[in-house]
């Protein structure tokens, strides 16, 4: 500590670096002229910078660079091939569309079946004129009943945008699915389904 009792304020690390690199002139640090410790630090920094600067990285064989490029090219190609199906927008569309179609189709089938099976019991004696013969085709979507039946309206709106081909691609008709159950009914099941539909439609005057 100096005789006058004041604490010596040495130059900070970043100031020493600036002086050693010549980013600021020594004249801008008057302390340097009176402090051997700081002057030595600046000298040491310059010496180590000179030592480090003289060291070059070993140069590999000229053939090595093409080898490195080939390694990178191969690794990148592998990487690109592995990730493409997941990053490609069209691929996402191909994956998601059938899945979306499957979900919508499942909802339609569930709604259609539950609305029929959960319906209240039929009135005991339908008018003779309302009885539908086995050979008649019932148009559920366009017939007069469709206008009054909320469930059919719901089903129609849900299925409006359905891509049936996409639904097929999604494996919707696989064994155990709702569609599979409907399309593989035996004669007794079909007769029962027809009877239920007939009863459902009869009160509305169909």
């Amino acid at each position, binding site marked *: 500590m100096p005789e006058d009792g004041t604490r010596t304020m040495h130059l900070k690390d970043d100031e020493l670096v600036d002086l050693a690199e010549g980013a600021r002139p020594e004249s801008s640090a008057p302390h340097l002229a009176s402090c051997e410790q700081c002057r030595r630090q600046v000298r040491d920094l310059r010496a*180590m910078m000179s*030592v480090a600067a003289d060291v070059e990285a070993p140069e590999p064989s000229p053939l090595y660079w093409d080898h490195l490029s080939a390694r990178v090219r191969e*690794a990148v190609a592998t990487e*690109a091939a592995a990730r493409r199906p997941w990053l490609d927008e069209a691929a996402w569309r191909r994956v998601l569309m059938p899945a979306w179609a499957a979900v919508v189709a499942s909802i339609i089938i569930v709604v259609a079946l539950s609305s029929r099976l959960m319906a209240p019991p039929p009135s005991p004696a339908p008018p003779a004129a309302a009885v539908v013969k086995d050979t008649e085709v019932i148009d559920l979507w366009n017939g007069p009943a469709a206008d009054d039946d909320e469930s059919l309206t719901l089903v129609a709106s849900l299925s409006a945008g359905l891509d049936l081909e996409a639904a097929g691609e999604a494996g919707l008709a696989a064994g155990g699915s709702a569609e599979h159950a409907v399309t593989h009914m035996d004669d007794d099941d079909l007769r029962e389904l027809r009877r239920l539909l007939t009863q459902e439609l009869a009160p509305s005057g169909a």
Partner: protein
Amino acid sequence: MAAADQPLADLDERALVDACLANQPGAFDLIVERHRRSVYQLCYRFVGNHEDASDLSQDVFIRAFRGLRRFRGQSSIATWLYRIGVNVCLNRVSAKSTLGKLTEPIHDRQFVDAGAESASDRILKEERAAHVRAAIAQLPPTQRATLILRMYHEMSHQEIASILGSSVGAVKANFFHALANLKKLLGEGI
């Protein structure tokens, strides 16, 4: 002329990155070709041996390829690759010690222009260089990164701060301590 019609070599950096993103053949190869030497040297100076430097260089370019969409052109491709390179090297040195490989025989890997200097001069110079490289490779990782980027890749303190995610003052302090520690490691032998 539209960028797609221009030769790849004539494209600016942003357009070259866009060409890579458009899967234009050869575009990423050109980035590798332009920067492979500096990336390799960065990695070599970090780990001090050819095998690790080679693996790390490949890793740097693969990560760059994965991150191409995030390249916004706010810095040069070189600075961006250095940033990736420093991160890859820091991860490697924190994951395993490379000190065991630092004594790699220099002449096994180095391409030398034998006609430029006498054999004894060359051997002395290489021994000294190997000694300094080994000392640099023993520096704490952040000090090592700072010294390598400053001394060998001529980056400003500001650029180094950007790469390391620190302040200019911290970079200068790291540089100061890196040089001070290098002096201690080299002792009187240099």
